[in-house]
C-alpha cells in the first residue's frame, strides 16, 4: 500500500518534470521546416535536370536524395542538425535527411567505443528497423505481385 502511494507520487513528479512540448508551435515549426527541406530537394532536382539534360528523371531523383543525405550527414557531423531537430521535431525526422541523421548521429556518438563496436554497430540502431521493415514489407508486396502474375 505504501509502495503504491509512493509510486503514484513519483509518477506525478515525473509528469511535472517532463518538458512540455507545446502542440501548436511545434506543429507549425515541423510544417515549415519539413516543407523547406522538400522544396530544397525539388530545387536540387530541377537544377540537376537543367544542368544534365541527358539524366533520366529516376537518376535525377537518386542524385537528389544522395545530395540531401550528404548535406544532412555533414550537418549532423558539425552538430547543426540536432539543433534543427530540437526545433522542428517531425519536420527533421520524416524527410530522408532524418534517415541520414539517424545513421550518422549514433555513429559519431559511439565513436569512442571503437570503429567496429562503436561506429559500425551503433550506425543501425534506428536505420536497422527501418531497413528491415522496408525490405520485408516490399518483399511481401513483390511476392503478392508474383503470385498474381502467375495467373
Amino acid at each position: 500500500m505504501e509502495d503504491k502511494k509512493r509510486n503514484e507520487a513519483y509518477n506525478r513528479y515525473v509528469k511535472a518534470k517532463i518538458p512540455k512540448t507545446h502542440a501548436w508551435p511545434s506543429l507549425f515549426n515541423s510544417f515549415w521546416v519539413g516543407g523547406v527541406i522538400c522544396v530544397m530537394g525539388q530545387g536540387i532536382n530541377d537544377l540537376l535536370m537543367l544542368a544534365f539534360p541527358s539524366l533520366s528523371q529516376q537518376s535525377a531523383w537518386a542524385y537528389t536524395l544522395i545530395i540531401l543525405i550528404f548535406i544532412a550527414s555533414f550537418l549532423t557531423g558539425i552538430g547543426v542538425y540536432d539543433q534543427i531537430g530540437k526545433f522542428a521535431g517531425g519536420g527533421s525526422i520524416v524527410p530522408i535527411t532524418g534517415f541520414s541523421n539517424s545513421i550518422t548521429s549514433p555513429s559519431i556518438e559511439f565513436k569512442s567505443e571503437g570503429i567496429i563496436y562503436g561506429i559500425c554497430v551503433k550506425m543501425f540502431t534506428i536505420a536497422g528497423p527501418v531497413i528491415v521493415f522496408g525490405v520485408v514489407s516490399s518483399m511481401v508486396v513483390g511476392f503478392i505481385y508474383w503470385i498474381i502474375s502467375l495467373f
Partner: protein
Amino acid sequence: MEIFLSYLWVFLIGGLVCMLGELLIITTNITSARILVTFVLIGVFLEAIDVFDYISDFAKAGINVPIIGFGASLAKGAISAVKTHGLLGVFTGGLTATAGGIAAAIFFAFIFALIFKSHTKK
C-alpha cells in the same frame, strides 16, 4: 507562375507529411525509429495499391523527399523486378532500387564519424 505553383505544392504536401509525423510524436510519444518505420510502411502501402504515382505527379519532392518515398521506391523496385525477373525479383528488386540512398547514408555516416567528434548534448 507555374513554377511557383508547383513549388507551393511541394512545400504544402511536404510540410503536411512532416506535420503528420510531429502530430504522431505529440499524441503518442513514439520514438523517431517508429516514426520512420511507420512512414516507410505507408510508402510501401501507397505504392502497392498504385496510388503513390498519382500523388507524386503533383506533389513531386513533397512526397519523394519524406521517407514515404523511400518505402515507395522499395515497393516499386520489387514490383518492377518481378515483372522482368519473376520470383528472383522479389528478393533483388527492393534493395536494388534503394541501393543508392542506403549506400550513401552508410558511406557518409562512416566518413563523418571518423572525422567529427561527438558534440556533448547540453
